[in-house]
């Protein structure tokens, strides 16, 4: 089964989407979209370094993105530069340095487009193993830090005052983000990773009655986008990575269209709990 390149692409893409969805929710809630962009652009520098020192690309990308994330955390604490300008500066500098370093290495032949926009049809069995094992590890760690991270997302001071250690949860979350960038780079490429993180999460917002449900719906929407994008790319011969993002965008647009009340998950949920409450009221 895994011998077919299209099947491998589907399995790898779905694995990536299942991890990107829940993590993307936190990126949306914490308004870190630009931050994610910066980390993923830094990934190209990781690719260049990996080729230079001949080490595993995923590991190098994780290391570089992780370092940039920690550096950004430290710089933000100093808060000398506005973080918006700081992120813009770092984001494009990292991308540019990566491109320049790659250009210097005339002895390696690199498929630059593959790194920028993804090369999902070329995933190997090894890539699938990295995506699913790495992804499972990321999700397990996210589940462990869920409560402190979520409490700090709602209000950092409240979480800290009530003994949740939001600082530690924050650092762990940054490293998880670096890990997701490392494993999803092959699927959609460094320029489109942020889209895989935030579009499914934004789509899930309208449908989800609670934060945990939003994480699960985001994972499901991401997986559907991967399937839709890949089949679309096969049908119309379009590039796979961008097709996945376009498919995700289509789901988002569907989610913001006005829905008849009887079809909407959220309003039905709310209506029911309201009824329950009224019943409880009359009984008492």
């Amino acid at each position, binding site marked *: 089964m895994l011998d077919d390149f299209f099947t491998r692409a589907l399995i790898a893409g779905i694995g990536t989407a299942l991890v990107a969805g829940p993590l993307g929710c936190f990126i949306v809630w914490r308004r870190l979209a630009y931050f994610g962009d910066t980390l993923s652009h830094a990934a190209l520098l990781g690719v260049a370094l990996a080729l230079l020192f001949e080490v595993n690309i995923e590991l190098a990308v994780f290391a570089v993105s992780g370092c940039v994330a920690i550096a950004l955390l430290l710089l933000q604490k100093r808060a000398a530069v506005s973080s918006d300008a700081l992120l813009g500066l770092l984001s494009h500098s990292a991308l540019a340095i990566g491109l320049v370093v790659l250009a210097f290495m005339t002895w390696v032949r690199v498929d630059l487009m593959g790194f920028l926009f993804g090369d999902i049809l070329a995933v190997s069995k090894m890539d699938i193993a990295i995506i699913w094992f790495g992804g499972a590890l990321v999700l397990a760690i996210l589940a462990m830090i869920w409560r402190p991270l979520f409490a700090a997302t*709602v209000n950092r*001071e*409240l*979480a800290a005052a009530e003994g*949740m250690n939001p600082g530690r949860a924050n650092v762990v979350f940054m490293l998880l983000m670096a890990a997701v960038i490392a494993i999803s780079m092959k699927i959609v490429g460094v320029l489109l990773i942020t889209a895989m993180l935030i579009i499914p999460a934004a789509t899930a917002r309208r449908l*989800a009655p609670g*934060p945990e449900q939003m994480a699960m719906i985001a994972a499901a929407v991401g997986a559907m986008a991967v399937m839709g994008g890949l089949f679309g790319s096969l049908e119309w011969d379009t590039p796979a990575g961008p097709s996945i993002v376009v498919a995700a965008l289509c789901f988002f647009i569907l989610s913001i269209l006005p829905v008849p009340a009887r079809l909407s998950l959220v309003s039905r949920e709310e209506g029911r709990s*309201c009824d329950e409450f009224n019943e409880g009221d009359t009984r008492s």
Partner: protein
Amino acid sequence: MLQRPDALVTLDNAGIHRGGRWLVRGISMSVDAGEIVTLIGPNGSGKSTTARMALGLIAPDEGTASRRRAIRVAYVPQKLTVDWTLPLKVSQFMHLTGRVGADEAQAALAATDATRLTHAEVRTLSGGEFQRVMLARAMARRPDLLVLDEPVQGVDFTGEIALYELIGRIRDELGCGVLLISHDLHVVMAATDRVFCLNGHVCCSGTPKSVALSPEYRALFGNRAASTLAVYEHDHDHTHLADGRVRHADGSITDHCHPDDGHHHEEPDKERSDA
């Protein structure tokens, strides 16, 4: 100040230095179990800074801040906004920093008159509603130390009185220490055991009455503020405790409530009968 052995939190000569000046300095205070301590002071006098030191959110640059080991803290911050991207119901918000029992959550919401909000989305609540939900969440944690930063913001005057009474009831039921920051200089609740009046330093402290009469307080807020504080005390000069006894404004506790026993200052007025 002497270290109280059973204090939940103690600040000893603590100060915070930021941007070349002292925000607060030389703050010595403590909160014991079962005691309500109120911080008052004008804007920028360091009330929130002091509370944040007490909570351990910022470390003092001078002096010490210590909390008793393994105490359970509940914090009601001054401002909390929930982003529209975050779907969060009140029932889920109750478990934000730790799972609480379903009965406890329900009882707390009932006590703050917020039961009907249980399934509402947090971001759709009005200021007053959210304030009650935050108080319910803090209460359901059954804390040892409850810290409230300006809890009556966005609450109308009658709601304000009810809220202060509720804080008193929480203290009586849980036996927790309460550190309260009051933005309202005119209304300091009568159930307060000790008031610390801040103005970059501890300007004066003591029972609400002694602070109101102190020349430092009058210098800071003027005579009118001092007299309105006294008037408010007349409205609520005693509280009925859970065991049926009565706690009076001067801190004494009697078995019954007699208007002429010397603990009261005048007959309860019409507002009392509303409450």
